[in-house]
């Protein structure tokens, strides 16, 4: 088997070869600037961009004119959050989000806080859900935006966005959802789900890196934004900058494939993911699954392995490309804030691994990966004083540790 085995599709996906094929002509042959109105080079590029716009719109049940191209989800989230805040400042200065959002939502919100906006940070329960009553109670007539992700990137928990959308609509506040992880893995429909703004990124759905989009509702209600990038007035003034034509073409093809293959792909992914979890839990019954076992993405499993430390585990399974529950932001390991807000102690958060499967994952790879993880967890447990104490019947919570 070829190693390392890629089980980190939530970090990024490879480009589907069909996507690459669609993109290739747009680098050197049909290389025009989509904004060039005076010649065929520009017209060809523009036609390709518009086709892609239609394909992405179709994936989420939107009108093509509601798609604004960006450099990815980080930019789409920034545009949605800051753009709404600046546009609707007269109406109110209050925004709502949750503590488990991606940094690309949390940090724009923090930025707004520093500018005098008020942000409500909703907590989550141990499965990763916000309390809808608490959300409803938090919405006031000063609330201009609720931003809650469709699916969480670390544990895969799906927020009930149709209910959240309906609630926001009833309360008259705008609803933004970061659907970066959900695209192609969960059916999206901005009408049925009452979403006003939605962020997507191509590189999480078998498209290229550095391209994404923001869906901005045009009717019922018409959402307006203050652009965060000023310049030539591209994208109806909402996002200036020459369009990344090859990237956009790639995103369009990725969206078309996602829509066409989802029905077939989702049950296969879920079956592989279930196999992975079942094999881990059968061999290591005290392993802990994190997130909501029911309402979740089909391709992702987040599992904690008590009594072994996460970094040493990752070090031991170097044939596997996975993410650990410790965000290795700097050189030091911080336990993931998402897992901690689900109520996991530092120890469990430290020992968690996110496995995310994808279009090119095979059953043999899942079996190899689980065997390796089990083997390594057992090896590390045989050297773990914590495991030894637990075998001796010692309650670790009663031990007086020497903190350092």
């Amino acid at each position, binding site marked *: 088997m070829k190693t390392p085995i890629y089980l980190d599709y939530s970090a990024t996906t490879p480009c589907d070869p069909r996507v690459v094929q669609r993109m290739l002509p747009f680098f050197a042959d049909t290389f025009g600037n989509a904004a060039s109105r005076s010649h065929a080079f520009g017209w060809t590029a523009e036609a390709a961009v518009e086709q892609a716009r239609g394909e992405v719109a179709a994936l989420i049940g939107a009108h093509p004119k509601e798609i604004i191209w960006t450099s990815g989800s980080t930019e789409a989230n920034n545009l949605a959050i800051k753009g709404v805040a600046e546009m609707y400042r007269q109406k109110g200065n209050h925004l709502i989000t949750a503590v488990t959002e991606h940094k690309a939502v949390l940090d724009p919100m923090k930025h707004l806080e520093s500018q005098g906006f008020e942000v409500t940070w909703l907590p989550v329960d141990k499965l990763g859900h916000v309390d809808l009553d608490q959300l409803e109670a938090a919405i006031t007539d000063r609330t201009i935006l609720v931003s809650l992700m469709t699916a969480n990137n670390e544990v895969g928990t799906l927020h009930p966005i149709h209910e959240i959308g309906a609630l926001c609509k009833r309360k008259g506040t705008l609803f933004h959802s970061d659907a970066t992880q959900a695209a192609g893995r969960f059916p999206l429909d901005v009408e049925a789900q009452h979403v006003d703004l939605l962020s997507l990124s191509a590189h999480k759905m078998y498209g290229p890196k550095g391209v994404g989009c923001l869906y901005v509702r045009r009717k019922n209600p018409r959402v307006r934004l203050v652009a965060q990038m000023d310049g030539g007035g591209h994208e109806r003034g909402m996002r200036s900058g020459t369009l990344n034509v090859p990237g956009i073409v790639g995103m369009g093809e990725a969206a078309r494939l996602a829509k066409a293959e989802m029905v077939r792909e989702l049950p296969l992914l879920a079956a592989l993911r279930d196999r992975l979890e079942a094999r881990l839990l059968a061999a290591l019954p005290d392993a802990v699954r994190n997130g909501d076992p029911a309402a979740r993405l089909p391709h992702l499993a987040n599992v904690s392995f008590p*009594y*072994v*430390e996460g*970094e*040493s585990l990752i*070090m*031991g399974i170097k044939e596997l490309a996975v993410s650990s529950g410790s965000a*290795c932001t700097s*050189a*030091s*390991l911080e336990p993931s804030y998402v897992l901690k807000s689900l109520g996991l*102690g*530092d*120890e469990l958060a*430290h020992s968690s691994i996110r496995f995310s499967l994808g279009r090119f994952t095979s059953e043999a790879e899942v079996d190899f990966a689980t065997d390796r993880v089990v083997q390594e967890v057992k090896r590390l447990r*045989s*050297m*773990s*004083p*914590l*495991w*030894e104490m637990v075998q001796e019947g010692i309650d*670790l919570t009663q031990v007086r*540790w*020497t*903190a*350092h």
Partner: protein
Amino acid sequence: MAYSDKVLDHYQNPRNVGSLDKNAPDVGTGIVGAPECGDVMKLQIKVDDQGRIVDAKFKTYGCGSAIASSSLATEWLKGTTVDAAAQIKNTQIVEELSLPPVKIHCSVLAEDAIKAAIEDWRKKRSAQATPPEGHA
């Protein structure tokens, strides 16, 4: 994160993993660290009548550098005297394993574990050295 070859070697082939009888009079046990901090080390020494360390074992919950630090410590302990062992400094471990600054705490923990094991052994010995008859 990049690991030095020596850290990798100790991680993959740890020396002296295991446990000695913690109730034996000639065994000293040191347990340092805390699970929430991400590392716990248990280090044990078995000492003969001449004060020589005849065996050393460890178990560590922690990152690769913590495992390597304690594995290396047991190598150094075996065959040396308790007095010499008490002189081992974390900086020697840092140097031998080429630990980066963020991993220095692993070496500190190993030094603490050595000291705790010696301390435990000394306590046991002084308890024994005071026989019931009462003459010292």
